[in-house]
C-alpha cells in the first residue's frame, strides 16, 4: 500500500521541560499512505511529539520534516497539508456544527461554494448530516469526535494526525471511526495516530512505534515486532491451578522449551495463575508436572502473539505506577 515516499520524518528529536525529557531522541519515518500508530501509556510523550510535528511547540533539539517542510520555519505550508484532531477536541458551542466547519474552511481560505461542497461531503462521510445544523454545544462526545474528523477532512489534507481518536467512543463508534481512517489511508492520505488502545491500533496500523518515557523502544510492523520481541517465545501459556503450589514455578521453568515462568497476577499474585513463555508446545508436559506435584489444573490456555503482549512486555511496571 502506498509508495515509499517519506512524508513525516524526524531525526534526533528532543523536547525537554526543565529536567523532564518528554521526548528523547526520536527518529521516525512515516511513508505516504501509511497508518502509523504511536503507542504508549499516559505521559509517554505522544502528544508532545505530535505538537512538535505540527509546529505547535518548538523542539529543544532535532529536526522535523513534514513533506520536506520544516514546521518551525514554514508553519503555514505544513498546516495547509496537515489535518490535526487534538484529543478531546473542542468547538464553538454557540455555533452549529456546520458553522464551525465553515469557520475552519474560511481560515483555510477555501472559497465559499467549494467550502459548502466539501463540508457536505465531509459531514456525509462521518455520518453527521442530520445533526450538523444543531448547536455544537448539544453534541455528545462521539458526535464531537466525528465533527472533529469532518473538520480535518474539510481542508482535504495529505496528512492526518489523530491524537487518541477513539478514547471515549463506544465499540461500534470506534470501529466506524477506524474503518473511515483506513479508507482515508487507502486514498493515499498518510495517517499518524496516537493511542493506548492496543486492539484497535493493532487492527488498522501498518506500523507502530512503542513509546515509553519519551523513548521509542520499538518500531515496526506488528507482526515483525512480535518476531523481534517474542522471538524465543512462540507459544505463550496461561495456567490456573486450584491452590498455589510451592516450587511449581521453578519446576516448570526446568522443563525443556520453557523460557520463563511468571505469576500472571503480578508479584503478590499467590501463584495460582502462571504465565509461561515457551519455544515449543509443552502443554502435555506442563499438565503432567502439575499433577506429579499434587496440584489440580483448572485451566490451561495457549495464546498467540498479540500487540497486547508486546505492549505488556514494555509497560507492565509502568502502567502499575500509573494506576496507583
Amino acid at each position, binding site marked *: 500500500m502506498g509508495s515509499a515516499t517519506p512524508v513525516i520524518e524526524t531525526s534526533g528529536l528532543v523536547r525537554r521541560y526543565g529536567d523532564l525529557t518528554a521526548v528523547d531522541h526520536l527518529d521516525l519515518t512515516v511513508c505516504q499512505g501509511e497508518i502509523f500508530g504511536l503507542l504508549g501509556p499516559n505521559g509517554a510523550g505522544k*502528544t508532545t511529539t505530535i*505538537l512538535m510535528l*505540527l509546529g*505547535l*511547540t518548538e523542539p529543544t533539539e532535532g529536526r522535523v520534516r513534514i513533506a520536506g517542510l520544516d514546521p518551525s520555519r514554514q*508553519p*503555514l*505550508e505544513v*498546516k*495547509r*497539508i*496537515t*489535518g*490535526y484532531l*487534538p484529543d*478531546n*477536541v*473542542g*468547538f*464553538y*458551542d454557540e455555533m452549529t456544527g456546520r458553522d464551525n466547519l465553515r*469557520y*475552519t474552511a*474560511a*481560515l*483555510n*481560505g477555501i472559497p465559499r461554494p467549494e467550502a459548502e461542497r466539501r463540508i457536505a461531503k465531509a459531514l456525509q462521510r462521518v455520518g453527521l448530516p442530520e445533526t450538523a445544523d444543531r448547536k455544537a454545544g448539544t453534541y455528545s462526545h462521539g458526535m464531537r469526535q466525528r465533527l*472533529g474528523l469532518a*473538520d480535518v477532512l474539510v*481542508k482535504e489534507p*495529505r496528512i492526518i494526525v489523530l491524537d487518541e481518536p477513539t478514547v471515549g467512543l463506544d465499540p461500534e463508534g470506534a470501529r466506524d471511526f477506524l474503518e473511515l481512517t483506513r479508507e482515508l489511508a487507502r486514498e493515499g492520505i498518510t495517517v499518524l495516530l496516537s493511542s493506548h488502545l492496543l486492539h484497535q491500533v493493532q487492527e488498522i496500523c501498518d506500523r507502530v512505534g512503542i513509546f515509553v518515557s519519551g523513548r521509542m523502544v520499538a518500531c515496526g510492523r506488528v507482526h515483525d515486532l512480535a518476531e523481534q520481541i517474542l522471538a524465543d517465545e512462540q507459544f505463550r501459556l496461561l495456567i490456573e491451578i486450584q491452590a498455589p503450589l510451592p516450587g511449581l514455578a521453578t519446576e516448570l521453568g526446568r522443563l525443556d522449551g520453557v523460557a520463563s515462568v511468571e505469576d500472571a497476577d503480578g508479584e503478590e499474585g499467590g501463584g495460582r495463575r502462571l504465565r509461561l513463555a515457551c519455544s515449543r508446545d509443552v502443554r502435555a508436559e506442563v499438565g503432567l508436572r502439575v499433577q506429579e506435584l499434587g496440584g489440580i489444573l483448572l485451566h490451561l490456555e495457549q495464546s498467540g502473539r498479540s500487540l497486547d503482549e508486546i505492549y505488556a512486555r514494555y509497560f507492565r511496571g509502568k502502567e502499575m505506577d500509573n494506576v496507583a
Partner: protein
Amino acid sequence: MRKQTSPGGLAVITRKEFADHVSGWRMIILMGLVAVTGVASLYVAAQTIRSAVGEAGTIDFVFLRLFTASDGKLPPFISFVSFLGPLVGLALGFDAVSGEHARRTLSRVLAQPIHRDALVNGKFLGGLAAVAAMLSALWLAVGALGLVLIGVPPTADEFVRLAAFLAVTVIYISFWLALSILFSTVFRQAATSALAGIAAWLFFAIFADLLADLAAAALVPAAAGGNPEAIFAQEQIRLWLSRLSPVTLYSEAVSTLLTPSIRALGPVMVEQILGALQGVLPIGQSLLLVWPQVVGLITGTAACFAASYILFMRREIRA
C-alpha cells in the same frame, strides 16, 4: 499543491470576533448600562443648562455643555464614559485567549494555516470594531437626544469637537481591550483574568490620583511650609505621576476637547494668566493640546499588545 500564500486568517478571525461581540449578551448589557447612565446625565445636564440660560440669556457652546455640565449630584456624561469605558474594554477581552483555551478550540484553530499572531490581532481588531460600532451608535443616539433636549443644533466647531471626543474614547477603550487581552494571555483562567482587569480598573479610576497626591507630598515635603516654588514643584510632580494613569490622560483630553475655555493643562502661573487673551481656544489648538495625551494612550495600547503578542508567540499550544 495549492499555492495560496496570502492567508486571509486575520480578516476571517476579525469578522468572527466582531459578529460574536455584536450578537452577544455582553454587548447588550454594556450598552444598556452606558445608555441608562448616559441618558440620566444628559437629562440632568439639560436641566442645568436651561436654568443657566434663564439667568444669563445665552451661553457659548451650549451643545458641548450637555456633556460636561452637571447639577453637582449626578456626574457629567464624560465622567460616566471615563468610568464605564474601561468596563466595556475589559468585558470584551478578558477571555479572549483563555476562553479559546478553556473551550479547547485553540489548538484546532492554530492547526489551520494562519499565523499565530492572526488570532491575537483578530481578537483585538474584532473587539475594536465592535467598540467603535457601539460607541458610534451611542454617539448618534446621544446627539439626537441632545438636540431634542435643548433644541439647538451643534455648530460645526462643536461637531468636530464631538467627533474628536468619539475618536479619543475609542482609543481609550481600546487601551483597556488590549490590557484585558494581555491578562487573558497571561492567566489561564478567565475569572482570574477578569479579576486582574477589574483590579487595574479600580486602581486607575479611584486610587491612582490619591497615590499621586501622596507620592508628590512625600517627594516634596517643603511644600507644606507654603513655599510657592515648592508648591509648584509638588504640583508638577503630582501631575506627571497621575498622567501615568490612562484614566487621567483620557479625562484631560476629553475635558479639553469639550471645554474650549481650557487653555492649558497643569499648573499656570499668575503672570501667564495676566498677559493672556481672554476667550476660548480654537479647535485646532485644542487638538494640539490633547495630542500628547492621545499619544500616551496609544503607546499604552501598543505596549499591552506587544506584551501579549510576545507571550502568545512563545507559548506551547496544548488544548
